[in-house]
């Protein structure tokens, strides 16, 4: 692996003769996008929609995309790994987006070029970097990428670890404990760890009725926490902590009986200090917990590429001009999606999709010599407390004093929502998986 200095040198050392020209024809600007996830794909599509004359190239390591949103449904058999696979064909054939299946190993912001492992030099007029997140396995003593691949999968970036976790759940001994180590903020898909806990609990009721799900959390709260816990309570007899109980609708009462799902917060000693991969033991302040299946969702930072390209700050994410998501470090480079610092916007696919569109508009405007228009973003995170029990957080965001602020008002499913509304939210969540994928990739 190259360190950052090598990385920049590798970019600077480009032979000009080998470089693809930035402008294939006079007046045709070349926008290069690194990363074909939700952010990159949406940016590519919308750039072509906003200005079909642009040349748009996506550099992506994989031939197809494996979507992370909805991927916990693989654990319960509601979706297969194949269902997660998203093709790039429509972006190519319908919109004329070019793809280079390769990884970026060098970057020269002065010459405005990137270099790939396959020794291609690609020049850009504007560069969008959408590298997603990197999982900080090493942040938890005893954990590593190798452990995640073999013993204690994270399954947070879907792939082989998702499949391994699915196998482990199915093979878990009757009455075993499925431990989820939740991540600290900020991380991708804020309701995701808790939705996963719910779906696994639901699955176990059918297939391993004496099994348990235990969430160990370094936080005291999470987005949608009240509505999610109400769902757990109704569906699985979860005991709601006292500080949440007072807000619950009348008639919600804890049984006090042991529940198949339990959430241990930081204030109750939920933060993980270390793990033992061999024995699947998690050590917290409260002592050691022996897991039968151990699912660790480690702390996250911007995707590695963002570090290599020097786009991150001390927070481990990328500072940007919020109006356009142009990097605060390099001119003509834009960072979107989970890797960017977007204030009130969560690290979600929906956010990345909306950021990509605003950035695409800003780039088209810049190239035409216009100022970018007023931005607006939305985010909706749907989550399931059970396959028939939906909830969400929904926000509109605006630029305020140079930062992204959410518009005031209700954002969650109300705690007194009817079962009809709750079931409808689940139906919309399922529909969203389709319409969202289409908006990004087709």
């Amino acid at each position, binding site marked *: 692996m190259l360190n950052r200095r090598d990385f920049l040198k590798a970019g600077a050392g480009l032979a000009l003769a080998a470089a693809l020209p930035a402008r294939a024809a006079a007046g045709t600007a070349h926008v290069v996008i690194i990363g074909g996830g939700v952010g990159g794909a949406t940016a590519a599509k919308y750039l072509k929609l906003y200005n079909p004359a642009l040349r748009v190239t996506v550099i992506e390591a994989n031939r197809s995309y494996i979507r992370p949103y909805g991927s916990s449904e693989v654990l319960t*058999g509601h979706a297969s790994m194949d269902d997660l696979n998203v093709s790039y064909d429509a972006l190519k054939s319908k919109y004329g987006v070019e793809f280079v299946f390769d990884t970026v190993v060098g970057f020269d912001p002065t010459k405005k070029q990137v270099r790939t492992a396959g020794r291609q030099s690609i020049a850009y007029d504007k560069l969008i970097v959408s590298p997603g997140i990197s999982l900080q396995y090493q942040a938890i003593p005893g954990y590593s990428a190798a452990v995640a691949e073999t013993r204690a999968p994270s399954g947070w970036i879907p792939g082989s670890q998702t499949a391994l976790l699915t196998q482990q759940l199915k093979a878990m001994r009757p009455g075993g404990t499925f431990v989820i180590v939740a991540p600290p903020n900020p991380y991708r898909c804020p309701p995701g760890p808790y939705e996963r806990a719910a779906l696994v609990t639901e699955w176990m009721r059918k297939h391993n009725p004496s099994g348990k799900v235990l969430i160990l959390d370094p936080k005291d709260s999470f987005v949608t926490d009240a509505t999610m816990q109400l769902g757990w309570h109704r569906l699985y007899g979860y005991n709601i902590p006292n500080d949440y109980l007072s807000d619950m609708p009348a008639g919600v009462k804890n049984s006090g009986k042991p529940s198949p799902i339990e959430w241990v917060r930081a204030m109750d000693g939920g933060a993980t200090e270390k793990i033992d991969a061999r024995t699947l033991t998690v050590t917290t302040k409260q002592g050691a917990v022996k897991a039968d299946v151990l699912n660790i969702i480690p702390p996250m930072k911007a995707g590695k590429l963002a570090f290599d390209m020097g786009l991150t700050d001390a927070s481990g994410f990328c500072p940007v001009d919020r109006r356009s998501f142009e990097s605060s470090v390099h001119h003509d480079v834009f960072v979107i999606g989970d890797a960017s610092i977007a204030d009130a916007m969560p690290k979600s696919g929906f956010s990345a999709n909306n950021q990509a569109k605003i950035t695409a508009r800003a780039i088209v405007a810049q190239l035409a010599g216009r100022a970018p228009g007023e931005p607006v973003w939305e985010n909706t995170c749907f989550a399931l407390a059970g396959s028939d029990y939906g909830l969400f957080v929904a926000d509109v965001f605006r630029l305020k004093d140079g930062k992204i602020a959410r518009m005031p008002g209700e954002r969650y499913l109300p705690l007194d929502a009817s079962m009809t509304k709750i079931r*409808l939210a689940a139906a919309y969540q399922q529909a969203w998986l389709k319409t969202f994928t289409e908006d990004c990739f087709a």
Partner: protein
Amino acid sequence: MSRVYLFAGLILAMNAAHAGHEAQPAPRTPSVADVRSTLAEMPRGDVQRGKQLNQSLMCASCHGDAGVAPTQNWASLAGQRAPYTYKSLLDYQRGGRHENPRATLMKVAVKGMSRQDMADVAAYYASLPAKAAPAPRLDAAAHASTDRLARRGDPARLLTPCASCHGAAGQGGINETPALAGQSVGSFVRTMQDYREGRRVTDANQGMRQFAERLTMEEIRELAAYYASMGKN
């Protein structure tokens, strides 16, 4: 060890049985007698209770507080005959309706509804006056030909008049035959297409398909405009 494997195997097998998406039951087309016996068991509806359910079950979100759909995406139900609404709700609950993904929302909405709930909601819509829906204006010639088709049919194509079952004023007829007056154009056209292309098959003996497939799309659109403009303004 072997017991562990055996158990793991069992779990896998059980999971395989549950894997994948929920299987859709094959839609079953009822006979006239089936429909009759369904309707014979329809409880007496309570309009006031139906009005409350229209809100609490979120029907009103798409079908309107007073049964007038706020958008073309959904059916208007003001003035709809109770047996039709009741039967439709039952069809959704029994899993017979999945002509398009919108039906998913209805299947969700009817989950947990009792027959009494269905009859009450049906009674509420039936108690409301049908309102004319926004529709493209038919020119005199188109209006005349559509009116002829609706009231006289077309013997050359063995098309009986719509009015013979749905009423001269689109008010509906006997049994489950729905009212058409004031129906939103979008909903009317979509419904006819679903009959025509065999996606909606829960009407008695698939009777509507025979009509829908003999009509051109142009005629269907004109009929939609014709019936939408009936009802009070």
